[in-house]
């Protein structure tokens, strides 16, 4: 059994609590003080690792792509992109859907897994939420710059104006404005509320006056009062309960952007569930992409254990299978609908001039992950998971590419057929948002507590309330 990897043998597995037989989520040997010191130390240290500066610089350098690309875009207009008729939606919409999908795993981890009492989420929920917010920042950039006149983007919102013009609420694009802005707002408030007690800890442990002031302000004067905690827990649960339908609705609304249009390949009822599953799939891949280097770099293997990675890989397996079902259904419906246009669209998608994109998608999204993730050995192989997470995110990007481009460029009338070719500005802004995401993430791991300390404390065995007797003594010894 030992050949099957460190998680196989139940007898020598250090993660199993010998007293209760329960599977520990974090490695044994930690107490309240050690987890606090470990997590707060990353933020409060005066020795910032050199690697952090390097990463921040690389991220910031690549993010300049957004600045330069957008500057030129604002000067010249969307003509610098590859969008044209009939391919009026190009990289901007692909990237928008891709980024916002990545964000969804963060909400899923923080909200849905909280409701299902999956305590293993506590180690990863904070940076998954951060990932959500930064992904929404990157995603939100695209529709704004895609509107052509971004300085008038506020026209999207219903506000009284001298023109007496109002939004048109039968359009999915207006729904999008509401869905994405609500998603961004609720994600930020959920993230901030989650950090308030940790800001209190940082305030109390900081030695630099500036840090004390900064975290003190952010903590709002949190003092850990029990009455506060009860209201806090109540608000957290409510926010989780609200975020769950929210996250499902956001990608549903985004899929309506496509599904409401009367275009072959878009006009299908399977889009909402299949978009949501794809979003969660890519999001979990992104959590792995981030978690694996971070746990290594900051020596967090005790707190983000192989069990976390294994569980995330299982979620990817499940959501990836739903996505695969979605692809299968699309092909089936193209045949079963007996619609000439649907059939041609699918044929063109697979074997037309851009057929290569479809097969990359099948290879990276279905063939590689869904065959290998069944193996537990591979699910706990950190290197493999990291590479796989990059493969899946490539695949999910190609999924959006296939949906957007191959449905548009050859529509009903052959005389209006065209093609789509992205320009260097498309690539520059796209790669730039990856830099922006990295840059924001590096700032986050340095200045904010990336693992929720108060929630990690709740997972320690010392939290058990015992009323006197021998048991209490052993617990108190462990705490000291």
């Amino acid at each position, binding site marked *: 059994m030992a050949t099957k990897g460190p998680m196989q043998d139940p007898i020598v597995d250090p993660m199993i609590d010998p007293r209760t037989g329960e599977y520990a989520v974090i490695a044994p040997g930690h107490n*309240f*003080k050690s987890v*606090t010191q470990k997590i707060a130390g990353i933020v409060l240290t005066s020795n910032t690792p050199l690697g952090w500066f390097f990463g921040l610089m690389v991220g910031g350098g690549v993010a300049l792509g957004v600045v330069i690309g957008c500057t030129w875009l604002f000067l010249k207009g969307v003509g610098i992109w590859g969008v044209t008729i009939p391919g009026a939606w190009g990289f901007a919409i692909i990237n928008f859907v891709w980024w916002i999908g990545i964000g969804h795993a963060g909400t899923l981890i923080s909200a849905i897994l909280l409701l299902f009492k999956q305590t293993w989420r506590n180690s990863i929920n904070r940076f998954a939420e951060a990932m959500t917010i930064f992904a929404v920042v990157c995603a939100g950039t695209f529709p704004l710059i895609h509107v052509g006149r971004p300085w008038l983007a506020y026209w999207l919102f*219903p506000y009284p104006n001298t023109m*007496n013009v*109002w*939004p*048109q*609420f039968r*359009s999915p694009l207006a*729904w999008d404005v*509401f*869905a994405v802005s*609500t998603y961004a707002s*609720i994600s930020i*408030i*959920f993230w901030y509320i989650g950090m308030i*007690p940790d800001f*209190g800890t940082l*305030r109390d*442990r900081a030695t630099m006056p500036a840090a004390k002031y900064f975290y*003190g*302000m952010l903590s*709002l*004067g*949190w*003092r*850990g*009062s*029990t*009455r*506060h*905690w*009860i*209201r806090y*827990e*109540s*608000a957290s649960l*409510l*926010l989780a309960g*609200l*975020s769950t*339908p*929210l996250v499902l*609705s956001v990608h549903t609304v985004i899929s*309506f952007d496509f599904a409401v249009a009367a275009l072959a390949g878009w006009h299908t009822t399977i889009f909402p569930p299949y978009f949501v599953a794809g979003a969660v799939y890519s999001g979990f891949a992104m959590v792995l992409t981030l978690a694996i280097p971070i746990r290594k770099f900051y020596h967090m293997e005790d707190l983000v254990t192989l069990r976390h990675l294994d569980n995330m890989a299982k979620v990817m397996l499940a959501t990836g299978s739903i996505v695969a079902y979605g692809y299968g259904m699309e092909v089936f419906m193209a045949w079963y609908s007996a619609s000439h246009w649907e059939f041609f669209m699918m044929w063109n998608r697979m074997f037309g001039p851009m057929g290569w994109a479809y097969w990359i998608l099948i290879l990276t999204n279905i063939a590689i992950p869904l065959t290998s993730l069944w193996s537990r050995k591979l699910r706990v192989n950190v290197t493999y998971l990291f590479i796989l997470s990059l493969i899946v995110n490539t695949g999910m990007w190609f999924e959006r590419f296939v949906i957007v481009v191959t449905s548009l460029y050859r529509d009903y009338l052959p005389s209006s057929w065209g093609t789509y070719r992205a320009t260097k500005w498309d690539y520059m802004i796209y790669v730039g948002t990856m830099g922006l995401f990295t840059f924001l993430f590096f700032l986050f791991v340095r200045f904010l507590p990336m693992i929720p300390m*108060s*929630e990690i*404390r*709740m997972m320690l065995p*010392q*939290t*058990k*309330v*015992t*009323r006197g007797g021998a048991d*209490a003594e052993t*617990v*108190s010894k462990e705490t*000291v």
Partner: protein
Amino acid sequence: MPPREGVYGLLAEFNTPGELVQATEAAHHAGYRRMECYTPYPVEEAAEALHFHKTRVPMVCLIGGLMGVTTAFLMETWINVWAYPLNIAGRPLFSWPAFIIPAYEWTILFAGFSAALGMIALNGLPQLYHPVFNAPNFRNGATTDKFFLCLEAVDPKFSLGETRTFLEQFPAVSVVEVDH
């Protein structure tokens, strides 16, 4: 209005949540009412010992959600039926199924902000100053690994000597006076 000078209360420090809960239960039994526990993570048993059960956060959240759905739906109806009617492919002006989607989003938006801001407001935060921060051992432990019980001086049963004796019968690490 509690006095702003003198003693705020007596603060006992414990090493484990179990000791804190025992002391809190005993204090409640002894007749103390104006007291508070301070813990580094939520300890539900401590809230039970304080007999603090109901929070109004869910009610605030519900009211917020109802306000959100009403606001959004009425706004959409007013805009698309009266303020700026547009014929979009012959669809009815009052296309209520389409209006549900933004109304749904605003339900969540308003409810979420009500829950979060309602929690902060009911907790009386932001409150950057509080007397317990004056205790020398409070900030080193309350947000890290120690458990505190504070019996407040406004309680009619409070008297410096007797309350201190009462608290010292528990395995507290220390019992300190907290000044305003």
